[in-house]
């Protein structure tokens, strides 16, 4: 596979995954407000902190308010990590290599992008923000579902999926970091807040089904880090990432030591998660665990760029 094609595929996976995580988070945080203590302003600030960049927000807006925050996180085309920009980036990457994936995928993503671009913050808020984010999740699910359903299982598919799972792993780690911050700020984590975190990754019901009695920060973190059956856990994401790279390695003619190293790093992080005992995860140790996972994720991203993408090209996350 050509460097530039590998790179585009990887970023299609990453950006569509990132967009989905954003939509899930904003949706849940948005509807958590009623339960929050303190002035409205603080709530909006916390939402920006969890998803976006506080300093970038404050450069643009003087105060925290519903309209500005939702616009900043979702539809602000000038904001590096807003939802619409993630979708635009995925779409631009697909546009450059659209012959590599089924044209149905291009049609879906392009149509979705055009719809999202035409949305207006005031209209979204006036209508139903929940339905709006629901539609975003559905649009992205249609993209992913169609890929699962019809895409050839070749290098292109493995490359896109490896990007998706690396992004997922990183997003979950960041989500847990924001939970940790929140708990530190407020002194405790409310029941509603933890439930919202679980719901944002669609994991509340799975959590319950596994018979975990106590809805505590530690239990939620253990679940999102190490639950190997749950597809939005770090463990699962790293395992899938590694599987896709092994598929890529199997098709390679020359043995790549760089590629081997990526697989080893991912497998090491995953098996460490597998060895974690529930008592190992507590408010004190969690920060260190998350820091280390974040470093591993970053290392994996950089190694992917070095092994597969154009040498010397700067990689932006």
């Amino acid at each position, binding site marked *: 596979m*050509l460097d530039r094609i590998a790179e585009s595929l990887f970023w299609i996976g990453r950006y569509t995954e990132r967009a989905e995580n954003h939509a899930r988070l904003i949706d849940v945080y948005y509807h958590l407000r009623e339960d929050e203590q303190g002035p409205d302003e603080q709530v909006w600030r916390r939402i920006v902190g969890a998803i976006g960049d506080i300093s970038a927000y404050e450069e643009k807006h003087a105060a925290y308010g519903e309209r500005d925050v939702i616009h900043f996180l979702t539809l602000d085309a000038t904001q590096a990590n807003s939802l619409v920009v993630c979708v635009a980036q995925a779409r631009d990457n697909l546009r450059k290599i*659209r*012959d590599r994936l089924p044209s149905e995928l*291009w*049609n879906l993503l*392009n*149509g979705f992008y055009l719809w999202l671009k035409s949305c207006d913050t005031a209209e979204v808020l006036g209508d139903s923000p929940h339905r709006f984010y629901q539609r975003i999740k559905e649009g992205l699910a249609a993209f992913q579902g169609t890929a699962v359903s019809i895409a050839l299982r070749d290098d292109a598919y493995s490359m896109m999926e490896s990007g998706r799972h690396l992004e997922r792993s990183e997003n979950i780690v960041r989500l847990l970091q924001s939970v940790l911050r929140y708990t530190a700020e407020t002194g405790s984590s409310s029941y509603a807040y933890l439930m919202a975190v679980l719901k944002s990754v669609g994991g509340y019901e799975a959590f319950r089904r596994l018979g975990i009695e106590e809805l505590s920060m530690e239990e939620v973190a253990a679940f999102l880090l190490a639950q190997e059956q749950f597809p939005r856990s770090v463990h699962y994401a790293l395992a899938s990432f590694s599987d896709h790279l092994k598929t890529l390695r199997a098709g*390679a003619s020359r043995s790549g030591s760089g590629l081997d190293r990526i697989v080893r790093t991912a497998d090491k992080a995953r098996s460490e998660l597998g060895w974690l005992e529930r008592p190992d995860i507590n408010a004190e140790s969690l920060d260190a665990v998350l820091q280390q996972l974040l470093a591993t994720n970053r290392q994996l991203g950089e190694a992917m760029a070095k092994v597969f993408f154009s040498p010397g090209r700067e990689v932006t996350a």
Partner: protein
Amino acid sequence: MELWNAITSLSPPASKFYDEMFEGTQVRAHYEKVQAILSRLSIDERAARQRQMNRRLLEEGITFTLSQPGQSEALERTIPFDLVPRIIPGAEWETIERGVSQRVRALNAFVKDVYHEQHIFQDGLIPRRMVLGNRYFRGEMMRLSVPGGAYVTASGIDLIRDEKGDYFVLEDNLRSPSGFSYIFKGRSIMTHDFPELYFSHAVRGIDRTLDAFRSSLRAMAQTDKSDPVIALLTPGSFNSAYFEHAFLAQQMGTELVEGRDLVCEDHKIYIRSSRRKRRVDVLYRRIDDDFLDPLAFRPDSMLGVAGLMNAYRFGNIAIANAPGTGVADDKAIYTFVPDMIRYYLNETPILSNVPTYLMSRPEEREYVLQRLDEMVVKETSLSGGYGMLIGPSSTEGERAAFAQKIIADPDNYIAQPTIKLSTAPVCVDGRLVSRHIDLRVFALMNGQRVHVLPGGLTRVAMKEGSLVVNSSQGGGCKDTWVLA
């Protein structure tokens, strides 16, 4: 046609142009069903369908990019697609098909002759200087033998109809004609978004053309490999026709590559890869000769591959279309195509040329300069509707300026009497109005056989009264049906 819109059983008034759908006040027999179905729809319903079709074009990214001076970002535009199909009866098509096939065979023979024995100059049919001095003549191609003798693998022949409905060839496009993708997408839109119209007719399918295209390219491979590597060379995703390149690569299952993806080693061309590189056997290039190889042509080209022409000379790669085919689609050479058909094929031309005056001939130049307001003047080597003077719609100042240009460089210009393009109904905001159209017919050469895509691309001048159908100038298109 206003009346026809108001009371849909009535027909529009006759005009001085040939109308595809109406003969006087009568609907032509092959359009009766279309007319009946369209007139059952209200204006609003037609407008809604039209919007739906255009939305789909946008959603599928069937766009071309247009960069205009003074604009920082290139615009992504869709080509307006019209819901009223253009219909060609089977017998009429049969003549077009034979005529186009004949023309392409003669043009291919001409290119081959130019780059080999040059009999046609020796026999005095065409002045040698007109060809050798042409900006598309490639000395590098002299005496180079081309796989299967196929120079013009893919070509597009533009046809128009005069006021009597007779077909004429307006232009030959032998370098890298664009428009295949619009035909296939247009057909797909018709079958999905207006099925009751499409399926009420027996329309000849076009899908086999993609097979024929692939076979033509495959047949050029100079290798025993069972699966030769075919690659489509595009200038990249910023090119105006990128959609078409991606579409063709995907539909034919060829690699889509940019110049920077290719590398020349040992006079062979490979696709770079982080893993194993693959040797390219056939290159279907969608970039101009000038940019193909910085070592052979323009040294500043970033789009091509250094060493490509050497690999070609060594017979290690086939290129479609062959470099240098531009000598045959020059607008001055065009005048000689009927002679070529008689000379190389010993056949009578089936399709006629539009009468054309060469400005290099003093008596013809005099004749034209006296009646510039009735003429269309074109630069011989430009296409896409650029560098033209359309006499009847020009100002006196424009004509004077153009006359100066002609006198200064007569070799560079030809003139044709203002052509009467036929008209066809077009749906604008649900109302049916009359617009000028032409037809680009696509032909694919495989060895000496020619496959002609049934139908082709009907281009529409969307502006009222306009004769310019090029997409770069705001033209639209229609699905084109050949009745089985």
